[in-house]
């Protein structure tokens, strides 16, 4: 079994003054390459903490986390930065684009930190075309709609061809129609590229579209509802079958209207 993510008994303890807060209490699970997984749970369940761990933004207090076979939990800050750069693509709820610069420069930003000096513009343009924004290359974020901004963010997430895409409430700031379009885009990219997709969400409609739901409750896995295994398999099969390119224009059109 090809696991892109292996989490072994991860705990995370924050010390706030005198009080110790146990955000994660020994969580273990695997995510297969190409899987679409959502992480759900009420506020304070450790959902964000888990996402930070998986995205290599933070280190667990104890436990082991393998991303792409690499033991991330014991890396230095700079090594973590490299992991985030090469292996993780982030999509945030609030888009997090640099407002001063064009979509192209925004999308090309991870390339800069990857040390790629030539051909950045071409790569960025390709990524923008892949999310259906080939004609919004020179626009700045404030000249784009929310859905378009999130597409730019998605293009930025995929530009370094990461192993996983971490989407933190990717539709949270969008209305349901545009949100669904972003969701479709993410799923399409997953199918086309085989990039593992991890979505943190509150929205059951979003979670329902993922192959598997990891539920958290009070820092532990909530195993009461775990019946989506077959769904996940189906998703992987779908990925294997499809070789079609994205119909970028169609997706874009959907995003506009």
């Amino acid at each position, binding site marked *: 079994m090809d696991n892109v993510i292996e989490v072994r008994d991860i705990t995370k303890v924050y010390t706030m003054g005198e009080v110790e807060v146990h955000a994660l209490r020994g969580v273990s699970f695997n995510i297969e390459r190409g899987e679409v997984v959502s992480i759900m749970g009420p506020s304070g369940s450790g959902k964000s903490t888990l996402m*930070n761990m998986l995205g290599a933004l*933070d280190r667990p207090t104890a436990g082991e986390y393998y991303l792409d076979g690499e033991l991330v939990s014991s890396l230095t800050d700079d090594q973590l*930065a490299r992991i*985030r*750069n090469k292996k993780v693509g982030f999509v*945030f709820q609030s888009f*997090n684009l640099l407002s001063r610069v064009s979509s192209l420069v925004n999308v090309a930003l991870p390339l800069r*930190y990857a040390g790629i*000096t030539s051909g950045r513009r071409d790569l960025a343009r390709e990524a923008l075309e892949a999310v259906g924004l080939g004609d919004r290359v020179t626009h700045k974020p404030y000249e784009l709609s929310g859905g378009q901004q999130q597409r730019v963010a998605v293009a930025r997430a995929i530009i370094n061809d990461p192993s996983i895409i971490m989407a933190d409430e990717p539709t949270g700031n969008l209305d349901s129609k545009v949100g669904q379009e972003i969701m479709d885009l993410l799923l399409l990219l997953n199918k086309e590229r085989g990039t593992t997709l991890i979505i943190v969400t509150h929205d059951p409609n979003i979670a329902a579209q993922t192959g598997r739901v990891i539920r958290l409750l009070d820092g532990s896995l909530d195993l009461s509802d775990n019946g989506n295994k077959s769904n996940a398999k189906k998703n992987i099969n779908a990925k294997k079958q499809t070789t079609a390119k994205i119909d970028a224009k169609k997706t874009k059109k959907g995003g506009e209207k």
Partner: protein
Amino acid sequence: MNLAQTFLEALESLNGNKLRSGLTVLGIVIGVAAVIAMLSVGRGAEESITGSISGIGTNLLFVFRGDFSETIRNPKPLTLGDAQAIGDPFQAPSVAAVAPALQGNAEVAFGGERTTTQIIGATPEYFSVRNYLVAEGDYITEEHILGRASVVVLGPDVADKLFDRRNGITGETVRIEGQPFRVLGVLESKGGGSFGSQDDLIIVPFSTAQARLIRRSSNDRVDIILVQTVDAESVDLAVEEISQILRTRHRTPIGADDFTVFSQRDLLTTFESITGILTIFLGGIAAISLLVGGIGIMNIMLVSVTERTREIGLRKALGARKRDILIQFLTESSLLSLIGGIIGIAFGWFIAYVVGQIAAATNTDFTPVVGTDAILLATLFSAAVGLFFGIYPASRAANLEPVEALRYE
């Protein structure tokens, strides 16, 4: 990550908040401009003083009676005999010309105008030794000395005061201490020196002064002996030769000399050290304002770091290492101070120019000089200020935890 990209990005980010960047730059502009202006004014003062000292005459030595530093009991006065001995080419081969002189103050009058000025009883050599040239008329000659002639050469300032002009005065009769003297000539102006005008004097024949104007206890006494050496290199040698001659003649072979040989170089050294201190002092004050400008940069960069916490978090999430963030913010702060430095240099130059114009308008012989060293110093210093005061904010940015930074509102 290449340099040009970093540079452009920093420029873009500074451009994003023009007013704030502009105000920050202003602090550095003022600092650098002050440094440039102060240094150039200091340098100008130095050159003006050096120039006026050089104007006294090249290779010039002054021999006085007595000693500046030690109290000598009964110093022997200098005499014409001393002057002749110094002028002896066998005893003092480094000496080219000797000009003994009497000095005093006298009242000069013409018509209703009168002025008190320095009077010098001089031999013909005096003019060449001191680099005095006549603008009109003649120099004092041997005949005037022998005949104790009642002739006078006027300095241009005296001519201005008495006649309101500098031409057509030759042949007029002025009264010195009530005695009539024919004007033999008028000197060319040497310009106002920074330590007293060299134009405010009158020169009469040595023998005339001795007999009628500047009376001394003994007949062959002189107040000062001016010595011109054969060239600038032989000044030290000449000082040694003169000292030897005078020690023998005054019978003071051991112990303190009862005379002083003062070279123009001593004068220059003294004034250069004074102006040097002045320049350092002015530059120091200016440097403080540059420092304040630097603190301004730190302030703004700290605000900028706080304001862009989310951006820093995002960059870190996208794979920026500490180093990348550090370089980004350091580039911004250095760029601020560099831009400020460049504008400051131009501005300081302008101030120096204005000061020069004011000096010219008020007939002061003073030109501020903007030296390359001042420019280099200001540039380096401002860049260093930007770097130094950028380090703290930049390291704060670089050490932000990505998780915290991303959550920051």
